[in-house]
């Protein structure tokens, strides 16, 4: 069965259960690792690359949310190298689509914005892509704004694993990737959608929002999803 192991995180010895990820061990021991795609209650995707950590003896950086903690591992969660990688990852997210906080319903409650502030990303070093993306307002209660999506796939996972509807998935590839409902239909026409709103609750940015909110008004509750996951026994 699962046995207890010891790992060193930022020099501190931490006890962990075999199979736990570095991210989980760190959180349990009061170390916060930044992340935009990881979420309590659903599986990890390792897509945002913000939880990258250094592991002694391994040259490349590893995502904490998908790397299992191993006996005797020595993990570093903050360093100049990590900060510069995390800032770069954030900059590329800002460059890729149209993140304009001043007109966003999630302004002030946005995980992307908060992370950029905490990591000191005040500007980007690359030209903006400024893609022309659509906004799907076909759903009676919710809105999907591709301009603000960072493709973290939290909505995909929560809809599949907690709600069981699997309305969302990522269509396309590379720079052309988009969150799609069913066969890339308007959200409002989705046969599978139960209008439960879980995807809206977990969105880290202003990509999935409830209708009827003005700038800065949209708040969310991720904790409710974690509780639901526990009740369903779906916690991975």
């Amino acid at each position: 069965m699962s046995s207890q192991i010891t790992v060193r995180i930022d020099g501190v010895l931490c006890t962990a259960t075999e199979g736990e990820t570095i991210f989980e061990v760190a959180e349990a021991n009061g170390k916060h690792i930044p992340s935009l795609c990881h979420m309590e209650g659903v599986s990890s995707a390792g897509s945002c690359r913000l939880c990258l950590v250094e592991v002694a003896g391994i040259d490349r950086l590893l995502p904490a949310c998908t790397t299992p903690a191993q006996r005797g591992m020595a993990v570093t969660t903050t360093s100049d190298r990590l900060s510069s990688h995390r800032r770069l990852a954030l900059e590329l997210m800002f460059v890729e689509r149209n993140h304009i906080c001043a007109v966003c319903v999630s302004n002030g409650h946005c995980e992307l914005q908060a992370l950029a502030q905490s990591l000191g990303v005040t500007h980007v070093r690359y030209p903006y892509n400024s893609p022309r993306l659509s906004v799907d307002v076909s759903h009676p209660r919710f809105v999907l704004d591709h301009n603000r999506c960072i493709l973290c796939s939290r909505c995909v996972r929560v809809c599949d694993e907690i709600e069981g509807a699997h309305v969302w998935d990522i269509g396309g590839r590379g720079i052309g990737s988009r969150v799609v409902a069913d066969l890339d239909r308007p959200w409002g026409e989705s046969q599978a959608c139960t209008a439960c709103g879980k995807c809206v609750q977990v969105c880290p940015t202003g990509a999935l929002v409830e209708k009827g909110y003005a700038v800065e008004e949209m708040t969310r509750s991720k904790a409710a999803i974690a509780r639901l996951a526990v009740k369903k026994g779906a916690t991975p």
Partner: protein
Amino acid sequence: MQSAASQRLQTFDQAFVDSVIAERTGRPGALLGILQKVQEHQPAQYLPTEVLEYIAAKTATPLSRIYGVVTFYALFSLAPQGKNSVCICRGTACHTRGSRDLLEQAMMRLGLQQDQDGETESLSVTTPDGLTTLRTVACFGQCALAPVVEVNHTIFGHMNERSLQKALETLDLGGPLS
């Protein structure tokens, strides 16, 4: 209602799709194989919406998952493809040896318009007469032969304007290329 349902089913070979699904059910990664077999069997080598919906219902796969798979892999097409296929490699090695010029030449010869947004990452366009589909790929894995062009499943290496012209003349267009 009945007639509408049966009419819908006529757009693809339901018995064939059923047999492909039955053959692969339970195998890991079955979806990819099912989609590939079904597309090969379709007259215009593509996956119409009705087929995707049918496969989704039959295999209890979410529609969005199927759409994700179909749009991720370049080999699947959601639009009818021509009976001729021309595929130009736009990988790094082929690019440095002039594959952009070959692509432009092929588009001109086939009477195709370049996208307004300029060059997209991957391209798949079919001529208005539905005879020829022109695609680009990121790499054929034949970089020593760069630039590489595939015409009707034959791979041509070291292509230039003249040899591409010759290769394009072998296309079955139901008449000479003007």
